[in-house]
């Protein structure tokens, strides 16, 4: 017998009620049960960060949380960053700085950066940005475009 639970969660402002098996990770629930396939699964052991989403505002690895644990929570995924079809400043900066190539790690980096930037008052220096972005892995870019994009957005937001 599967251990199943009825849960309610909000994803990018939309409320969902679904039945999940307790062992399904939040990443699989978002992707396969709710269709938010923008969140990617890269390693399933918390190292690569491709599945990073915001859970009640905090950046988390969606592969290290069970979907059932998100019951009653607010989740934000990459699909929630843009305003309709208008890319956010962060998304634009990633494109401008060539912070993505194959695009697989991109949603995780965007959500990591989104969380980090929301905590910033000033403009962090490059070494701090690198230390924070070191949470996720990218195999294509050598990270420079990603680091540049995050710093540019921090500067823009600081005015």
């Amino acid at each position: 017998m599967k251990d199943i639970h009825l849960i309610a969660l909000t994803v990018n402002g939309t409320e969902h009620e679904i039945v999940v098996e307790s062992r399904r990770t939040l990443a699989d629930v978002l992707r396969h049960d709710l269709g938010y396939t923008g969140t990617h699964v890269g390693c399933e052991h918390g190292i690569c960060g491709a599945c990073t989403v915001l859970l009640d505002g905090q950046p988390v690895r969606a592969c290290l949380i069970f979907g059932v644990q998100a019951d009653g929570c607010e989740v934000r995924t990459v699909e929630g960053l843009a305003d309709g079809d208008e890319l956010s400043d962060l998304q634009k900066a990633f494109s401008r700085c060539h912070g993505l190539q194959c695009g697989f790690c991109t949603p995780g980096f965007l959500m990591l950066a989104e969380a980090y930037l929301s905590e910033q008052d000033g403009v962090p220096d490059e070494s701090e940005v690198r230390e924070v972005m070191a949470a996720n892995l990218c195999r294509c870019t050598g990270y420079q475009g990603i680091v540049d994009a995050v710093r540019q957005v921090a500067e823009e937001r600081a005015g």
Partner: protein
Amino acid sequence: MKPAAFTYHRAYDVNDTIAQLAELGQDAKILAGGQSLVAMMNFRLARPSALVDITRIAGLDYLERDAQGLRVGALTRHRTVETAKIDGFGVLSKAARWIGHYPIRCRGTFGGSIAHGDSTAEWCVLAVLLEARIVLQGPRGRREVPATEFFQGFFMTAAQPDEMIVEVRFPKPAPHAALTEYSQRQGDFAIVAASARLDLTEDEVLTSRVVLGGVGQQPVVVDADLAGQPANEETWRAAGEVAAAQVDPPSDGHGSSAYRKKLTAALVARALAEAAA
């Protein structure tokens, strides 16, 4: 890499947790931040029959500084410790930065890390260094176990399967303490971690304590009394050599025993220097 099946249970207070653990039996486990447990479950290296999710328990997320020292609630996130300013316990905030990465620190909990009992884990090493006491609650009531006795072997602790860590108590401030570690890559588990606590005058050591991670099955207390020695680089280096000579670290893909000994010497000296600064 999908976990084996288990039943999920949510607890809303400590007593509820204890009751559920008792009912679910030996193969049930507590789920807190899950940053180690869920990864192990995804590899199917851990396969609990049931999980009791304690993350909804209110009131276990606190850092309380009092005359006796510091009390850390079991569900306090690493990130909370990292961003807190705790008088006399700056070492904790500073050391938090060594724990994994920012998202891991946002989710992982203090009590969870202690319960997991990884010998390289920053909180485990510092709990031993600062002679913390682990507060456990179980069907037989509450008890406190000194950190020095809590870690009993490779991922083995004094906590019984039906007990829950509710708090970690640090008995006295440690203004001169530091933890440093080395891994090749940012955020990885330490190959060796070294921590040091000193009481000192301007130029002389009054008391000292050095604890290591990654050199044994649990945090290792170095037998080195620096009392009366000058508080200088030479003393720190010599202490590093003494520590290295005492340990018999394991070998694995991240470093041989001989390499870990060399790291021990270097890192102990650095931890002492940082603690003294």
